[in-house]
C-alpha cells in the first residue's frame, strides 16, 4: 500500500498537481478509515485529501484507476495463460457465448439501466473482442477500438430507441402511433420527450465506452505495471493547456479559471495601494472622546482614499491568435467586472475601444459578435498590423494614458511584415506607469519570421511568455510585483 501510494503521489506531482507532505500523511490516515476493498471509498478518501482543486479531478481519476484498480482477484485472473476462468461469460450449456449473445446481454443491461450489469457485460465483451495479449500492443487505443467496433454502439442505440417506443405504445420511430395509445398514454411523439430519451440513451452508451476503457486499462496495468501505464497516460492539467492549441474542454476550464485570476489581480493591486487607515482625524477623535469623559479612548482615522489604478488593455483579436483572442476576451471581460477603470481595446490592423460593449453584451459569444460587427478593428485586409494599430491608438486615445496607467498588450507581435512603428510604444511607455506584453507564443519562436517581439519588447517593462493559465497566473504575480 505504501509503495503504491508513493508511486501514485509521484505521478500526481509529475502531472503538476501540488501535493504536500502533510497531505500525503492525511491521505494515508484517510485511507485507513475505510476497508481496503471498498474502492469507491478509497477514491473519495484520497480525492478529499490530495486533490484540492476540482479541475484536477479528471487527471486524478485516470491515475487512480491505474494505481488502484487491481484487486488481488483480478490480478490472478488476468495474468497466467490468458484463460480467465470466471470472468468469461458462460451460457447455460457452459460453453463460451458467441459475440451475438454478449451483445444481447449488454443490450439487456443497457435497457434496464443497471450500471453494475453494464460493467460486467463490458468486461466480458473486452475478453471476447479485444484480443488482448500480454506483450501485444502497448497502447489501449487498439483494444478499445476493436471492442467498441464489435459491439456496434450505433446498432445498440437504434435498438434502445425502438424498445422505448414500443414501451410507450409507438410502433416505430417513423411509424404512426395507434390512436388509442396516442390519446391515452403520455404523448411519446412529443419532441421534447424524444429528445430526453435520446439523451438518456447516449448517457448509457457512454457507460459502455467508459467501462470498456477502464477494463482495458486494468488489463494493461496487470500486464505492464502501474508506472509504465501512468507514464503513457500522462495528461495535462487544464492550467497547462496551451492557449493556441486547446480543446473545447480546456477552454471551458480556462473560462472558469479566468474570473478568479482577474479578481486576484484586482486584489493584489488593491493591496499594493491600500493602507489600512488614513491619518488620525483629530476633530472626530475629540468628539468621540466626550463619550468617555474626555479620554480619547478610540482613535478615529480618516478614510483612506486609495488612488485607483488604471488599466488599458490592448488585445490582438486576429485570426492567427484566434484561440488566444477568445481567451483574451474572457480575460478582458473578467477584468472589466473587477476594475472600475479598465479600458479595453481590440485590434487587428486597426484599433477600437470596446469597453462599452461589455455592458451591453450577454455572454462571451455575443461579445465576440459585437466586436466583429460594431468595433472598427479591421482597416484593410484583416491581418494583424501592430504598427497601424499603435498609431491609431496613440492618435485617438494616447492622451488618456497617464502616469497611473498600466498598459497591457496581449498578442503574438506577428506584424505580417508591416511597419513596426515601435517608437510609438516607446512614447506610450514614457507616459504610462508601465507597459506589459503578454505573448501567447513560446519564447523560442519570438523574433522568428514576422515576429517583432524584440523590437516591441525594448519598450516594455515586462514581456512575458503566456501560453497557459499557469503562466498567466505567474504573469499576474509579476505585474503587481
Amino acid at each position, binding site marked *: 500500500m505504501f509503495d503504491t501510494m508513493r508511486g501514485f503521489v509521484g505521478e500526481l506531482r509529475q502531472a503538476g498537481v501540488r501535493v504536500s507532505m502533510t497531505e500525503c500523511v492525511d491521505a494515508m490516515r484517510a485511507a485507513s478509515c475505510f476497508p481496503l476493498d471498498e474502492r469507491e471509498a478509497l477514491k*473519495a478518501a484520497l480525492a478529499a485529501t490530495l486533490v*484540492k482543486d476540482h479541475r484536477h479531478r479528471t487527471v486524478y481519476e485516470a491515475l487512480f484507476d491505474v494505481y488502484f484498480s487491481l484487486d488481488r482477484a483480478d490480478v490472478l485472473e488476468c495474468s497466467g495463460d490468458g484463460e480467465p476462468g470466471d470472468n468469461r461469460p458462460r451460457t447455460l450449456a457452459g460453453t463460451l457465448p458467441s459475440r451475438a449473445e454478449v451483445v444481447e446481454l449488454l443490450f439487456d443491461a443497457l435497457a434496464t439501466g443497471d450500471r453494475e450489469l453494464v460493467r460486467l457485460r463490458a468486461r466480458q465483451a473486452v475478453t471476447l473482442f479485444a484480443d488482448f495479449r500480454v506483450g501485444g500492443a502497448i497502447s489501449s487505443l487498439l483494444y478499445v477500438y476493436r471492442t467498441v467496433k464489435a459491439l456496434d454502439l450505433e446498432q445498440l442505440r437504434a435498438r434502445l430507441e425502438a424498445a422505448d417506443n414500443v414501451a410507450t405504445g409507438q410502433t416505430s420511430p417513423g411509424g404512426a402511433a395507434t390512436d388509442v395509445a396516442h390519446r391515452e398514454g403520455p*404523448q411519446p411523439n412529443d419532441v*421534447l420527450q424524444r*429528445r430526453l430519451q435520446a*439523451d438518456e440513451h447516449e448517457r448509457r452508451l457512454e457507460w459502455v465506452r467508459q467501462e470498456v476503457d477502464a477494463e482495458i486499462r486494468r488489463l494493461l496495468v496487470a500486464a505492464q505495471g502501474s508506472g509504465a501505464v501512468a507514464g503513457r497516460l500522462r495528461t495535462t492539467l487544464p492550467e497547462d493547456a496551451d492557449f493556441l492549441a486547446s480543446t473545447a474542454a480546456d477552454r471551458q476550464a480556462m473560462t472558469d479559471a479566468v*474570473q*478568479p485570476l482577474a479578481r486576484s489581480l484586482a486584489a493584489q493591486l488593491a493591496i499594493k495601494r491600500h493602507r489600512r487607515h488614513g491619518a488620525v482625524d483629530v476633530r472626530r477623535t475629540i468628539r468621540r472622546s466626550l463619550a468617555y469623559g474626555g479620554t480619547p479612548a478610540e482613535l478615529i482615522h480618516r478614510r483612506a482614499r486609495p488612488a485607483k489604478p488604471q488599466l488599458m488593455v490592448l488585445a490582438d483579436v486576429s485570426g492567427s491568435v484566434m484561440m488566444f483572442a477568445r481567451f483574451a476576451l474572457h480575460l478582458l471581460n473578467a477584468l472589466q467586472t473587477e476594475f472600475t477603470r479598465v479600458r479595453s481595446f481590440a485590434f487587428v490592423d486597426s484599433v477600437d475601444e470596446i469597453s462599452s460593449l461589455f455592458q451591453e453584451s450577454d455572454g462571451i459569444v455575443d461579445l465576440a459578435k459585437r466586436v466583429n460587427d460594431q468595433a472598427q478593428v479591421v482597416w484593410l485586409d484583416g491581418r494583424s498590423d501592430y504598427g497601424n494599430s499603435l498609431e491609431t491608438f496613440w492618435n485617438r486615445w494616447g492622451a488618456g494614458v497617464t502616469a497611473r496607467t498600466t498598459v497591457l498588450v496581449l498578442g503574438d507581435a506577428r506584424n505580417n511584415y508591416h511597419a513596426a512603428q515601435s517608437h510609438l510604444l516607446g512614447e506610450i511607455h514614457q507616459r504610462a506607469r508601465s507597459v506589459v506584453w503578454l505573448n501567447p507564443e513560446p519564447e523560442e519562436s519570438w523574433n522568428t519570421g514576422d515576429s517583432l517581439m524584440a523590437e516591441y519588447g525594448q519598450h516594455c517593462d515586462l514581456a512575458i511568455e503566456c501560453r497557459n493559465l499557469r503562466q498567466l497566473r505567474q504573469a499576474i504575480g509579476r505585474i503587481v510585483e
Partner: protein
Amino acid sequence: MTVHPVVGRNAEVAGGFDSPDDVLQQLAAAGYFADERTAQTVYLAKHLAKPIIVEGHAGSGKTSLATALAAVSRAKLLRLQCYEGLDEAKVLYDWNYRKQLLAIEHGFRGRAPDDDTSDGGGVFTESFMLAGPLLAAIRAKSSTVLLIDEVDRIELQTEALLLEVLSEYQVSIPELGTITATTVPLVLLTSNGSRLLSEALRRRCLSLHLDYPAPDREQDILLTQLPGLPQTLADQVGAAVARIRTMPILSSPSIGDTISWARALISISADVLDAGALEQTIEHLLRRRSDVETVREAWSTFDHAGAS
C-alpha cells in the same frame, strides 16, 4: 493560563457516524440527499477531525449541507458569513471597551487605587470579551457545527486568521493564553470559487466539490419538497434539468430553480413534460433570456431531425 498541546488530532469529533452509509441515511432523514462522495468526505472529516472546504456552483446545496449536518448531529450551528473587510474583531474576539472602562471607573471609586483592577490587568478576562463565531465554536461545551460561509469573499490576508482555528482548534489570545477546544467542532467552509484560496488553507482542509445532484437524486429532492408532484413528471424534470445543465448556458439552474420550475408545472396541472408545458414554464427555470433561447434552439433542432 498554559499553552496546551495539540488536542484536535486525537479527539473524536462530537456527534458520531458509524459509516458513510450511516451519514447518507441520517442526512436523508433530515431531508438532505447527499451523494456517496459527500457522505464519505463528511465521515472522514469526523474521523480525522479536519475541516471541509465545500466548493461548487451556486445553489448546489453547500450551505444546506451544513445546516443538515447540524440538525442530524443535534449540534448548534455557528455561522460566520464572510464579506470583504471582515476583520479579527468580528472573526475571533474583541475586548468590550466600554465595559472595561466602566469597570476601571467603578474600581477607582469603590476600591483603593492600588487594587489590581485599576491597573488594567483585571479587565482582560473572559467576562470582558466579545467572542466571535470562531471563538464561540472553540469554547462551546456541547457539539457544534461551524459554518464559514463564502470564505472566498475575505481577503487573502484575513484567511490567515482562520488557520490556527482550523488546524489546531485553538485560539491564542495574547492577554489570556491559548483557548483549546474541548469538543472539536465540525467545520465547513464554503466557497464559490470567485478567488483561489491559499495553499495554506487548502492544505489544512479536506476538499469536497459538490456537483449538481444526479437526476434520480434530484427527483428525490423534488418529491420530498413537493408532495403533490407526480412521479413521472419528477422523472422527466430531473432528466431535463440534467440535460439543460450540460448546454452552453450562462447561468445553470440551481436546485432551487428546479423546484420552482416543478412548482410551476404543477400549477399549470401538467401531468407530463411536453413541448407545450416547457414553453409555458421555462422562465421559472432559467432567468436569462439568452439561456431560454439556447435551450429552445437546442431542442427545436431535434424537432427537425426527428421530423425528417
